[in-house]
């Protein structure tokens, strides 16, 4: 499917004249649902509205040269990147305004990813979309798409400590939400086991049992890290986000969890 959609789009885009027309168009269109859903104007006022979150605000006025509104952090996703992402978005959604889960099935490379389900899920997780509500979205628009993508920005050279900390928390939150599949703010053992099982599902020879024992071991470890010695009648319900942060202490997630969107030109794809 994409085989046709891909190059078509790529060719159409510059033929559009300005080349960036479609982007603002859609983004403006996308603004609609956003206004409806939150009604809070969230991205503008949320304390951790960073990077793309604010970048999107600029989008309706045209991605290029639009005055940044409230940049908590410098905009890492440039207009050029947004354009690319938009092209890609169109490609995935087959020229629709929104992407549905099924659209992700059409990405051939994703097929072999053992935790594909969880990742795709994360794209539709409303917690990641900075919405007040909980649960799963049926479809996401370009803006949401950008929001998700913005979790994978690399750090900036000129970030100060506080920004880094927030940045780090954002990323961890994304990860946390991916593990916490029942949205109760805790990664329970069962949830953890599921993740590990999926992670290990690439190896057909490893028994489910080993996945379980690994998850159990990891959970034990988490419990010992987060709570220390517990009383005999204490119950470790699961990893809360605070515990999660604790576990990640000393690991530079900010240096690991990012994808380069730069050099987007190198990605003229045709599957």
């Amino acid at each position, binding site marked *: 499917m994409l085989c046709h959609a891909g190059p078509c789009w790529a060719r159409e885009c510059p033929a559009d004249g300005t080349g960036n027309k479609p982007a603002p168009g859609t983004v403006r269109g996308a603004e609609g649902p956003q206004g409806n859903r939150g009604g809070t104007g969230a991205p503008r006022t949320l304390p951790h509205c960073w990077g793309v979150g604010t970048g999107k605000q600029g989008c309706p006025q045209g991605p290029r040269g639009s005055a940044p509104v409230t940049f908590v952090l410098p905009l890492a996703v440039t207009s050029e990147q947004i354009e690319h*992402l938009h092209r*890609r978005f169109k490609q*995935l959604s087959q020229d629709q305004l929104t992407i549905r889960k099924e659209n*992700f099935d059409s990405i051939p*490379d*994703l097929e*072999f*990813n*053992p*935790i*594909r389900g969880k*990742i795709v899920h994360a794209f539709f997780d409303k917690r990641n979309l900075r919405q007040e509500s909980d649960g799963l979205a049926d479809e996401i628009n370009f803006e949401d798409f950008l929001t998700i993508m913005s979790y994978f920005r690399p*750090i900036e*050279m000129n970030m100060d400590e506080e920004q880094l900390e927030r940045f780090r928390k954002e990323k961890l939150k994304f*990860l946390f939400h*991916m593990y916490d599949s029942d949205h109760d703010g805790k990664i*329970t*053992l*069962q949830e953890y086991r599921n*993740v*590990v099982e999926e*992670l*290990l599902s*690439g*190896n057909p*020879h*490893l*028994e*489910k*049992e*080993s996945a*379980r*024992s*690994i998850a*159990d*071991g*990891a*959970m*034990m*470890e988490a*419990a*010992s890290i987060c*709570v220390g*010695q517990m*009383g*005999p009648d204490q*119950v*470790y319900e699961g990893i809360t986000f605070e515990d999660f942060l604790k*576990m*990640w202490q*000393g*690991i530079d997630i900010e*240096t*690991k*969890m*990012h*994808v*380069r969107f730069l050099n987007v030109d*190198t*990605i003229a794809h045709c599957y």
Partner: protein
Amino acid sequence: MQPPAASAGPAAPAGAELLRWQWREVQAPCLVAAWILVASLAKIVFHLSRKVTSVVPESCLLILLGLGLGGIVLAVAKKAEYQLEPNMFFLFLLPPIVLDSGYFMPSRLFFDNIGAILTYAVVGTLWNSFATGTALWGLHRAGLMDPGVEAGLMDFLLFGSLISAVDPVAVLAVFEEVHVNETLFIIVFGESLLNDAVTVVLYKVFNSFVELGPAHIHATDYVKGVASFFLVSLGGTAVGLLFAFLLALITRFTKRVRIIEPLFVFLLAYVAYLAAEMVSLSAILAVTFCGICCKKYVEANISQKSRTTVKYTMKTLASSSETIIFMFLGISAVDTSKWTWDTALVLGTLFFILLFRAVGVVLQTYVLNRFRLIPLDRIDQVVMSYGGLRGAVAFALVILLDREKVKAKDYFVATTIVVVFFTVIVQGLTIKPLVTWLKVKRSDHHKPTLNEELHEHAFDHILAAVEDIVGHHGYHYWRDKWEQFDKKYLSQLLMRKSAYRLRDEIWDVYYKLNIRDAISFVDQGGHVHSAAKLALPSMPSRTSMSESSVTNLLRESGSGACLDLQVIDTVRSRRDKEDAAMHHVLRGSLYKPRRRYKASYSRHFISPDKQERQDKEIFRQNMKRRLETFKSTKHNVCSSKSKARLKEKGRKKKNISLTKETLNGKTHRTVPWQDAAPVLVMVSSEEEESDSSETEKEDDEGIVFVARATDEVLQGKTTPGSLDVCPSPCIIPPSPTLAEKELPWKGDQADLAVYVSSETTKIVPVDMQKAWNQSISSLESIASPPGIESGHQHRRFACPVLEEQPQSASQAMPEQSSCFQFPSHVSKSGRSQSDSSPDGPEQQELQPLMATEEQGRMPPSAEPRWLMFNRASHL
């Protein structure tokens, strides 16, 4: 080796000799051995004082020692001897170091930074040599140098090429003690390894240019020079990859000749080096890539012992090579006959290499930072500039120069020695304070945790997925693709089937962590946790299992107890019970000596012949501890597993209903409590059991333990009342073979597959958990209904149990169910059951047959149980 009488013949005509002086025959190897011995002894001396080695790098001390020894040799022999011969250096001393660094290279880190490493190695080295060479030439032209230095541009470029290469030996020696962060280390170190190709090519090209003479150099020669760079570097890499492939393939088939596995590793790597050297490709690149690439497969293929052997041998070889290199550097420097000093040249070279290195690093980093995800900051750049140490490679290369062709060789030798000494001693000494002063991010050697490993794996997949979704074919995309390719083809081809099947990084980490924890746990005395909390015997070890003395059996009885499968003794007399009681009493006092014995013996757990067994034991011990802590943190597994288990009451009910169900299965009598949930639970646990027992059989990596909600097992021990707390997701009717549980020694030799000591109350490996509960309960009250069996072994004797149930338990059941919550009743009813159980012989006959059948039927979840019932009803 000993030359026969033939050589001595003419010299000794006067009959047979008692002894003969044969120094000539053994001279060469003897000298080698002597030097190595001297160097090693010196190392011991250095490390006597922690203060000295913490300030002064070992390489400095060795060079100084070499200088001293060289002085002595010079004074005694009146001539300089024992020089660092380039041939010896390149053929024997360098390969072990390079192999060691390649083989133990953190490959992930290396490939993550390969772009930066290559840039620094290629562009940086090119820049350094040309800039240094030209600048020195300029200095010469400016007339600042001694007129004795007869050298043209080509000579200086040649000198520049050999002096500008960062030396892997020196870098490794110094940076290993500095502990900068991994990224910084891998960049400097990777550069020093990979720049070999550039150095070799430049050196050869300029050398040939010098030999040709500037007049005879044509444009094609330059082109050839450029072409040869690609040839040398890519060719060297290709040779390395080829041998890595061969090596991996060979180790796939060494199953029956384990003993020579390590030999293959060293031989093939060395052959790779020689092969590359032979066709004048970059030998260092060949060995480096051979090491990096083969490791994954080789490690998976060879046995644990071989792995250890390879590791230690490699480290020993590399370390002694390094020692000798530095020492001989010192000794060689004493030989003043090769020296011709020129202050301008020496100072100029020192100044220029430092300057150009710094400039090069800054410029390259500026460019690289635009592409790097983690930019290298200013401090990193300082360390990188300052860490560009020169070493023995430069020295060997300069010695190799032909005095006829390169007129200024003596000047160059002197300069090189000064440069090497300066970088190794001065920079080596100061880099540590510098790093501290600049507050360079150190590597934090925190223990790798399982969670980290899991998250990082998740990361890899997430990032790859995001790149897929974005449609960006970046680093993660290609890494992911490579991993898939590796998994699909390479690993299958190069790994042993058994290894391939078990191969998984997460699992590896998990396993290693367990072993490590266990080792430290055992090392610390082993009984800190368990002995204090549980006064029960330790797990028996297999080693002592073979001994059949009564005391031994008594000591180890704890485990075999509930797991005895073959010797079923169902004669349950009062005497037996007394025995049991006696045994329990004895156990408490008997386990202690054994403990001590174990602790001390595991301290030397590396003793090779016992290693594997001990690994397993350690693993088990460790799991005990882990699960113990786990238990104390009390995972609420039950809540997620089944609602029925949320409350104790519910749990009990479920148990009962299950029992009922099982008992009445055939007659289809409706049971009041029978509902869907318990059945589900039972099914799932059944699956788990079979799973785990399978894994146990297949992995020979150890026993798979799975934590279960074993909440209050321990409490169950102290008060019979909490017995029912033992959560048992599935219930198999009480076993009649209580005697085994009570009289564990009866079953000790039965099945060595699984041992659980009743003392490990808190560790409940999935497949043992039930046997577990049983043993616990048997501790409480002898006749309390034994817990559940699991794992086929247990089931083996669980099945005969069923036979009696229809008669006895169906009557006992109502009573039991009504008062199940009251432990005293439980025990009563249990006793009544056990009393009413039929006697043994019949069961014993049936048992083997059933066991096999049982095993065959295991996987289908709930089926086995039905099977049991049927059989029971047949009876």
